[in-house]
């Protein structure tokens, strides 16, 4: 039962991403072509409000639902892994038109071929795991 709330978060997230059209290959293409404000509006307003939410959590020392202090782990300091990894991710994002969240959501919308993309993404993650110690981080 403690998982049911996460199921609902996922359902909510899936509906929002379909209704926003952020799961559309075309919207991603349009974004990278700078031909519409739509995706920038989505990401911009999400980050703007996200900053406010996290500020409120900190300011009022909001406790999590389990009563623990809310703590978001800081990302490790580095440049190369974020720039290089990010660029590789971006190449795939613009080609598939889907990042990891939308991959699952699109599967739910009935796009069976997304299974191939998810399998390939698992393979990519697996190869990263194999090469991790040889890559600059």
């Amino acid at each position, binding site marked *: 039962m403690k998982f049911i709330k996460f199921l609902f978060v996922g359902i909510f997230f899936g509906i929002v991403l379909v209704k926003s059209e952020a799961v559309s290959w075309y919207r991603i293409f349009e974004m990278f072509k700078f031909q519409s404000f739509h995706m920038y509006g989505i990401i911009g307003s999400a980050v703007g409000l996200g900053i406010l939410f996290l500020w409120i959590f900190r300011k009022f020392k909001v406790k999590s639902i389990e009563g623990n202090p809310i703590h978001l782990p800081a990302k490790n300091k580095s440049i190369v892994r974020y720039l290089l990894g990010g*660029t590789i991710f971006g190449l795939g994002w613009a080609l598939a038109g889907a990042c990891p969240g939308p991959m699952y959501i699109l599967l739910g919308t009935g796009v069976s071929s997304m299974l191939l993309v998810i399998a390939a993404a698992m393979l990519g993650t697996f190869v990263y795991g194999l090469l991790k110690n040889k890559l600059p981080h």
Partner: protein
Amino acid sequence: MNVILQPWPWYVSGPLIALTMAILVYFGKTFGMSSNLRTLCSIGGAGKYADFFKFDWKAQKWNLTVVLGAIIGGFIAVQFLSNGSDIALSAKTISDLKDMGFENAGTSLLPSEIYDWNNILTLKGFSILVIAGFLVGFGTRYAGGCTSGHAITGLSNLQVPSLIAVIGFFIGGLLMTHFLLPLIF
């Protein structure tokens, strides 16, 4: 009801994505969809090949539940909450895509030129999706997160590494859209 069935404008969708992130933080977790790929590798036995996959994946069951919900959410959104209206792409986008051989841009979420099984069962079509998926899976783990982990959560938490990652996302995305896609299509 009609308002719900229409596509939702950015100023509704963006704040609802922020709300998703905040709810997960309130639940004591962080919003990050790409971690599930690592979890799925571990469940599949990848720990035998790399220590990176030797971790207690059962602690990630909550995140897999989010994924299951996301799949259901996608189903509900198209089956019950959509009126089948086209995506209101800019006219320039539609004509640019037409020049590249993409017909009917915006009449569905994804282009049939890439996602129809008829096209995938060619060497070119198969390679496109496998390479795209591979790059996403490899890149996201190398960068330590994807759009949800870096662009939404990391930027909201004012993390400089996430800003660098998002700059990388755009370098890759711009390269693909402006230079590579015209070569592929």
